[in-house]
């Protein structure tokens, strides 16, 4: 691992908009608390906070687009330095930067950007709520690596198992004040609950039935609430235990607003027991119960739209996620942890399976990435208090689905007609989702239901 550069991380849920960071920045750079001089800006609109601040990007657009060579990333510190002498005040950097990280100062009549205050940012020190933290760039992702890995070494997942990735990363963040449910499926099969009296997780962990994960967790949570203990409930259900036989229990728990984080690790079938079909197995996919022969050509039905169904249950939080977009997942997990204090938080993690889907383990992340880029797996979230779906990684010009399908053995047999079906369904799915991006649509549907 490289040394990593420092950067300023922002935790909007801790921010109350007090502007102390802004004052501190102005004070440091201009000797005045006038916010006009601040390189950091915290603004409020529509009940949420936005942060405009240089991200000290790895591939900085400001640098790439500056016609004067006035911006440069310092390879020692990672700070993007602005050279006043070379700057011609053309402002193309303000157009190139997606983050409003470099802005025009009407008093000094030049652009300005965060320079890290010589390595000890004043804003971070000034924040009374810990909403700003100075971290190494890699730490924003890898700070979780410093948290205790609650999964024991040597659990028996397949090579390149995405579900194990989800399990380890999630439990690190959620911590050990938790009750972990891993219903029958890959998560349990790899030994989370252990074998012969041993355990695979350094936290209370259990096998619910395949059918009752959400109900059992709800029972435990209710009792802890009753006796005044704050314990997080988290489930790692497979798609079978979630969308098939476990659905009733999950649906009931969601309707009752049971407080838990329910993570569906969707590997699109029963990968733990010989690759059988589930209701989230996609159209056309080979499984051992949707085989390919002279008459049948893989699964003949489309996958159940599980996350959308959970939106319609009025969950506090619903999101889709992919390990190919870890930052996106981390952020959603943070929101889920918070939402689970109020009700159910459901995250549907797309979880490609090298073993069951027939692709090399080294292609895991690429499969995940292509799924998103083709819109096979749109990344979005739904916050009940916002009341609508928001794409967290909109893909407006998706790659053809064939670029995803061709990576995976379970789709090897698809003919043109089947691929065309998948392409059309993918488009349709996006169009349906887009309807839910309007608050009115979602609210109306809830009332109608």
């Amino acid at each position, binding site marked *: 691992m490289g040394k990593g550069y420092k950067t300023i991380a922002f935790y909007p849920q801790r921010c109350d908009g007090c502007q102390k960071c802004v004052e501190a920045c102005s004070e440091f750079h201009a000797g005045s608390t006038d916010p006009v001089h601040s390189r950091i800006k915290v*603004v*409020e609109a529509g009940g949420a906070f936005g942060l405009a601040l240089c991200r000290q990007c790895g591939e900085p657009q400001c640098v790439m687009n500056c016609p*004067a060579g006035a911006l440069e990333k310092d390879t020692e510190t990672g700070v993007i330095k602005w050279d006043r002498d070379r700057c011609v005040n053309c*402002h193309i950097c303000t*157009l190139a930067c997606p983050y*409003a990280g470099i802005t025009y100062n009407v008093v000094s009549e030049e652009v300005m950007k965060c320079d890290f205050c010589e390595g000890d940012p004043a804003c971070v020190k000034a924040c009374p709520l810990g909403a700003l933290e100075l971290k190494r760039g890699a730490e924003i992702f890898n700070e979780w690596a410093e948290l205790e890995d609650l999964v024991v070494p040597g659990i028996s997942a397949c090579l390149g198992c995405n579900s194990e990735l989800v399990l380890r990363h999630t439990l690190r963040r959620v911590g050990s004040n938790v009750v972990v449910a891993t219903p029958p499926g890959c998560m349990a099969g790899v030994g989370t609950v252990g074998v012969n009296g041993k355990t695979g997780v350094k936290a209370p962990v259990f096998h619910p039935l395949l059918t009752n994960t959400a109900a059992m967790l709800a029972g435990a949570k209710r009792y802890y609430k009753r006796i005044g203990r704050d314990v997080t409930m988290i489930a790692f259900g497979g798609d079978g235990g979630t969308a098939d036989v476990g659905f009733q229990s999950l649906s009931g728990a969601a309707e009752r607003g049971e407080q838990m984080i329910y993570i569906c690790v969707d590997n699109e079938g029963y990968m733990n027991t010989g690759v059988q079909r589930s209701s989230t197995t996609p159209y056309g996919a080979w499984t051992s119960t949707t085989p390919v022969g002279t008459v049948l050509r893989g699964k003949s039905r489309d996958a159940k739209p599980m996350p959308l169904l959970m939106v319609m249950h009025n969950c506090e939080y619903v999101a889709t996620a992919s390990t190919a977009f870890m930052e996106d997942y981390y952020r959603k997990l943070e929101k889920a942890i918070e939402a689970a204090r109020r009700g159910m938080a459901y995250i549907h993690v797309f979880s490609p399976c090298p073993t069951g889907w027939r692709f090399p383990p080294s292609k895991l992340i690429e499969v995940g990435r292509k799924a998103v880029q083709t819109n096979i797996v749109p990344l979005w979230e739904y916050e009940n208090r916002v009341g609508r779906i*928001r794409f967290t990684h909109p893909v407006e010009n998706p790659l053809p689905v064939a670029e995803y399908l061709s990576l995976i053995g379970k789709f090897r047999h698809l003919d043109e007609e089947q691929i065309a079906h998948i392409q059309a369904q993918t488009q349709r799915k996006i169009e349906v989702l887009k309807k839910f991006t*309007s608050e009115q649509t979602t609210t109306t549907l809830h009332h109608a239901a």
Partner: protein
Amino acid sequence: MFHSKYLIVGASHAGLSALDAIRLIEPEGEVTLLCAESTPPYSPTILPYVVSGEVRAEEVFLRRSDRFERMGVRFEAGARVVSVQAGDHSVELESGEKWEYEKLLLATGAAPSIPRIEGLEGVSYHVLRTLEDAEKLRAAMSAAKEAIVLGAGLIGMHAAENMLKAGLKVRVVEALDQVLPAYFDPRGADLIERAFLEQGIEILTGERVEGVAQSGGRVELSLSSGKTLSGDLLLVSTGVKPRTEYLKGSGVEVEEGVVVDDRMRAGGVEDVWAAGDVAQARGFFGDSKRVNATVLSAVEQGRIAGMDMVGDSALQPYGGGMAVNTYTFFKHRAFSVGMGKVSESEDDFEVDQVYLPSSFCYQKLVFSGGYLVGASGINTELDPGVLYQLIRRKVNLEEEKGVFSAKPLEMGRVLMSQVWR
């Protein structure tokens, strides 16, 4: 015969961007950058500032001298390509040298577009596309007293301002009815024009030049209105056109520029890419392929081309180019993104405007079906980059439109924090 696995022709934004993208994936393979001029890489966008003296010519280069060496890239200055043999995977230079390549990127940019005006070929005039042009113009300015600028685009307007500051009397002639027609609507253009007029620059819009003649050290222009103008310095700044003359007979598909697909692959041949001002690529708003000569397009197209050349699986196809620019003049600042010129009377669009002429302030947001499609501003606080991303990413603003129209700066930043962080 020289050989390079990756051969990049042209060393401005697009070429440099492609270079970085290639090196991100492939740290070893041969990469060669051919630069027609004898200088290190620079951006044509910097030239007005060289003219004005804000920056010295030797300080405009985009890469430090040791950069290419550290990257293991061969940089060839003064290497002007005169022909491409796509079948042989080779190019020929003006010097007669031949270079073989496995993958070729054409990033040769654009040249000034000279209008057909009777007599123009016979007079001495300036253009502004190279560092050499800039130095010549700067030298000429010091000796001249009265300048005529043909074309009120960004180059012309910048130059006019610079010449005024250098003490010249300046007149700008523009065939269309407004200045900066590519970026601003009439109201914004009027405001900008007002600043120029107040500073004493004469602007003649709606005037075509019918003929040019030279007598002694002076050029004389006859205009369509019957007026004549004369001056001792003529700058022709009527736009640019892709440099494609060296592609004749190469098989590379050229219309206005080199026609490319969404991975910047050139049509008609194998293993050739094009990016930047030379490329004719998808337009963002569903319009036909066109040349979009902006820095942002060049950087993005160059990166996509480089990624595709090196087989980077993270490649996202080109989403299309749109008109984007920033413009500073007489201590004022302006920007324009996307369909900023749409007028409020047009169907299918919703336009929010703030117009405060006394404060020299104008702001305009254009929506279509819940999406932002254009924005422009003069002396506003808005973040052009955030607005540009809201358009590019097609962020649905239907629900936020009320808040967004009232607080575009704040809401833009909140959305930025939420959507792409």
